[in-house]
């Protein structure tokens, strides 16, 4: 069994990098041949995590650095988004749908809810004054494998449609 295929990115906590971050992760994951929907789920979750790091972790300070680690193991993608910012005082409260600590910035308070819904597994750990780490995983149902399954070659248990 081969180890995971990994990549790591570190970039300035600037809002213009949000698009770069989600596109970079999507490009790395594209080797699993995900569906458009799966790719969009991953991009949205990454966008939420990175935006949180920039707005809440670093309070808009562009000197902060955000790190993303992505690992592909089999058909599962693991993404970790790390900041060394202010951290979250009350995780329970922060995870409540529609809760936001910055209503004046028109934040919807849906970031954590979206990450939880769009990914298979989602965990957040945070230490006030130290930073926040978000770990999430998602299984990609590869279209390629489904094609093989459809003609009855692959052992992946996809429904035979022909």
């Amino acid at each position, binding site marked *: 069994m081969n180890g995971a295929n990994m990549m790591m990115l570190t970039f300035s906590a600037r809002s213009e990098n949000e698009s770069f971050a989600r596109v970079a992760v999507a490009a790395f994951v594209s080797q699993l041949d995900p569906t458009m929907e799966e790719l969009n789920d991953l991009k*949205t979750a990454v966008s939420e995590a990175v935006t949180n790091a920039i707005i809440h972790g670093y309070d808009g300070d562009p000197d902060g650095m955000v790190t993303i680690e992505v690992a592909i193991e089999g058909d599962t993608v693991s993404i970790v988004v790390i900041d060394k910012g202010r951290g979250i005082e009350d995780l329970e409260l922060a995870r409540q749908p529609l809760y936001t600590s910055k209503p004046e910035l*028109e934040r*919807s308070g*849906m970031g954590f809810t979206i990450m939880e819904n769009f990914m298979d597994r989602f965990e957040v750990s945070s230490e006030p004054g130290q930073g926040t780490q978000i770990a999430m995983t998602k299984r990609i149902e590869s279209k390629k494998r489904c094609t093989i399954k459809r003609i009855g070659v692959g052992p992946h248990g996809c429904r035979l449609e022909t």
Partner: protein
Amino acid sequence: MSLQVELEHYRNVLIVRLRGELDHHTADIVRHKMEEAILRGNSDHIILSLKELQFMDSSGLGVILGRYKQLKAKGGKMAVCAVNPNVYRLFELSGLFKILTIHENERAALTSLEVVS
């Protein structure tokens, strides 16, 4: 990839067409352009036309909700149309469909706002 905002006035309705990606970085553009148009007061209602919106996250929800509140305070209505499946899921998850009506296209949205005879 960035975001383009196109505004069109049709009778008393402001049609806002968003093209590209709406995230935290581009949300400010949308906020400024829409806020300005709402304050100018030429339009009673707003239609958000999202056919060419390729990406949106919760920052988009925030800016839409903000404009909805602003418009509602003036007695106006907001409708969305041509929503792709990804954006639809976000609206659904956040409960935004409870306050916004959704339509297939701009014409249907205009009809719902009773500006097309």
